[in-house]
């Protein structure tokens, strides 16, 4: 692997930067874990609709990836995450969150069980030192694969057809399955869009070849390279959380009490108290019954995205804020994720309002938009789970 810093950006170039640069019309790069990642490639609208109606390709190599191997890898992971890792079979992927000793979420990510004693953890935040802490005294070997393993997210209704056209057979993969499609090419049926989609994992230096192979196969299936802005719309529609946006990874906070428990993030189902001790268990046992706030999925009245708006109870008392808010082109709704203090989040959830600012021809106005709580994802198409998946 070679790192070629682009001095004009001050960012490291990812494994498929050549391809992205050739495609990029917007030149809209942003820093993702130090890498130059596209916020958009051509136009966010094209990219979003490709994702939902055709297929999209997005480089996820800047994710942090860690390999845990050894006799006690399962014990270490079970000590780390709140769910019961031992229930994850080889060939499966699991969403997981992990907490500090006070029960505050450090990060979330996906846990791949490659074999009985061979695991991979993918997450947003750098986690090597924390994993090393968790593994101290245990028989496990930890390798940082962040810079040796590349990842490409192929997402959208035609993604299965594209893989098929590329000669990669993944018809048997159910949601959250993974398999080695070829030596040095692992494919998991996972993603950050709530749609049918796959993530392809390969050695860093193979990424361009895999990109080209997918690109060629996708030529007639509507494949587009996309940037993060389109992914962000899709992930909010799916109701997924972004570290640093919808919660603050507690180890990266400097102020007191900025951490949140899984219960406060609506991830209570991820906490398994019956599996034995795990980090933060004692704190979570007492925090379980007393969440300070709740992360809610809400419908926002009107069509102005409510990103960053403060949330009021009965239009008077400030009780929270919107962490992510967009107009959902597919759900045709104005949707948002909101942190709302208890008891307002549960006691009278119909009396929550977001203070949205609108600007019309130079005049700013504050408008109270009613919030309506929504259960589950805003958009969860059945095609995302159908096995074998539809071809288009």
């Amino acid at each position, binding site marked *: 692997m070679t790192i070629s810093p682009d001095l004009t950006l001050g960012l490291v170039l990812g494994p498929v930067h050549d391809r992205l640069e050739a495609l990029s019309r917007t030149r809209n790069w942003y820093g993702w874990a130090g890498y130059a990642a596209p916020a958009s490639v051509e136009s966010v609208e094209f990219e979003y609709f490709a994702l939902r109606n055709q297929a999209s390709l997005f480089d996820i190599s800047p994710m942090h990836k860690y390999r845990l191997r050894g006799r006690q890898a399962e014990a270490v992971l079970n000590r780390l995450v709140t769910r019961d890792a031992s229930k994850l079979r080889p060939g499966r992927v699991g969403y997981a969150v992990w907490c*500090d000793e006070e029960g505050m979420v450090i990060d979330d990510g996906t846990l791949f069980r490659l074999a009985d004693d061979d695991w991979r953890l993918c997450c947003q935040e750098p986690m090597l030192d924390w994993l090393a*802490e968790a593994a101290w005294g245990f028989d496990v070997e930890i390798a940082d694969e962040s810079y040796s393993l590349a990842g490409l997210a192929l997402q959208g209704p035609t993604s299965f057809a594209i893989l098929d056209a590329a000669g990669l057979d993944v018809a048997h993969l159910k949601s959250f399955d993974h398999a080695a499609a070829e030596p040095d090419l692992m494919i998991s049926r996972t993603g950050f869009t709530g749609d049918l989609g796959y993530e392809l994992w390969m050695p860093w230096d193979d990424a361009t070849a895999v990109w080209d192979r997918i690109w060629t196969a996708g030529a007639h299936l509507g494949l587009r390279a996309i940037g993060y802005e389109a992914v962000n719309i899709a992930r909010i529609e799916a109701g997924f959380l972004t570290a640093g946006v919808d919660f603050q990874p507690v180890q990266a906070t400097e102020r007191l009490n900025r951490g949140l428990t899984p219960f406060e993030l609506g991830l209570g189902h991820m906490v398994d108290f019956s599996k034995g001790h795990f980090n933060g268990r*004692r704190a979570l046992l007492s925090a379980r019954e007393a969440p300070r706030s709740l992360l809610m999925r809400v419908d926002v009245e009107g069509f102005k995205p409510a990103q960053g708006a403060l949330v009021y109870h009965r239009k008077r008392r400030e009780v929270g804020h919107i962490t992510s808010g967009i107009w959902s082109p597919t759900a045709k709704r104005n949707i948002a994720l909101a942190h709302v203090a208890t008891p307002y989040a549960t006691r009278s959830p119909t009396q929550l309002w977001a203070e949205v600012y609108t600007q019309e021809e130079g005049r700013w106005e504050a408008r109270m938009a009613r919030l309506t709580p929504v259960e589950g994802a805003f958009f969860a198409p059945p095609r995302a789970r159908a096995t074998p998946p539809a071809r288009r």
Partner: protein
Amino acid sequence: MSQFDTIVIGAGVNGLVAGAVLARRGKSVCILEQGDTVGGMAGLTSSDGPALAHLIYNLNSRVRRDIGLGGKDWPFKSKALPTVSLSEDGKHVVVDGAAVRFADGSDHPQATACSDLIRRLTRYGDLLRQLAEAPPPGGDSPVSRAGLKQLWWLGRFGLGVKRLGKSEMRAFLQVLLSNAYDFILDELPDGRLSGILAADAVRGAATGPRSPGTVFSLIYRMGHGGDVTLPQGGTAAVMETLSNAAKQAGCTLKTGAPVVRILTDNDHVTGIETASGDRVYAKQVLSSVAPLPTARLAGLHHFDIEATRRIRNIRARGTTAKVNLRLSRAPVIPGLPGNLLGARLLFAPSADYVEQAFNPAKYGDMSSAPVIEAVLPAPQMDRPWLSTIVQYAPSDLSGGWTDAAREELLQTTLATLARISPTLPELVEEAQVITPDLIEQATGAPGGHWHHAEMSLDQLLTIRPANLLGRYAIGPKGLFLCGAATHPGGDIMGLSGRNAALMALEKTG
């Protein structure tokens, strides 16, 4: 299968005290000791040599009361020893209580300054002792009963500080966290006097007199009046008293029963398993073993990741070796009258000497000119033992503690003793060199450190042995630390065990 209310791991000073305190409050207690005898590190002996701890100075009277030995006195007799600061020129200095003179009876020019200083330190020590006599504050709401009790304790301490008077209070607060070297030399230019205090400030510690916080350790050491006493019958008599008290209180005491596992169920301790596979069940386990070995007994996976990190970063670097010398007859020390042969003999001719002795230890070497505290418990006896504490002999000696390294330490010790008694080495018939690695091997104390964890400012009070571990409870419910690693530390005080027992009682009612 046997069932108790509480199991105590280790029958050292703190284990025995913890067991006795709990049993006297109506708990059924089982004390399990890995060795064949009780007494732990303090009582550690090699064949018939003297015990590791040869003098007692901090044994606490609240402990005596709480283990049922009454409010008056300990059942064993003990004798306060004068301290002799040995000098190569034969002009030894004797400190007896607060009285200071030359060994030949003549007056010492700095006698008054030294007496004043000792009285001041003893007074400060009296204050710090109050902090030692209760679990460190914290953890409880100030409106709870426990919280109010803590406030009362703190208030009493504050009042005590206030009662020193304005200038004394200022002086106390000024010196408390500073280094012993500057503090002592301000008052006592005479090396023989400054050497005593400098050596006392660092004994057992991985510090030199110039290290910060050494005034605190010096004061702490004088928390019980400052007398250094030799118990009749030696340390064994003290241990026998404590173990009798434990038995009297109703404890079941099992020796030769090393605990290999602390059993838990659903985040509660349920008992222990011994090396022979026997299980003893109890809802509470108090461990006088150091924090990391205790955590390993229960299994590291029962501890939060941050807790494990804190536990393994506790500093415990032993620096002190015990060298016991069997002499063919009582030695002759030029300039020292025979009646002082039974005193505490200290070779620390100046504060600088002590600091220089520490220098090699910083880099993993033993002192070439060590500080020695020697006691001849029975000088009149035939072939008496000379019991010496030799500093510095770091646990992390470069090259490790090989037989050759031990021999080198012995020769260095003899050469140093020869500086004040040239004929002494010829009298040695037998030598026992008990280095920190052997102490660790025998007791499990990390680094062979006699406090299990360095008594430094970052490992004291509420943050002893580490942040958030200062309230004795650790890991799964029902598991407590009760050893020297906890507040207020070792030094044969017995308070760690007693405070832990009180805390365990508070948690169960």
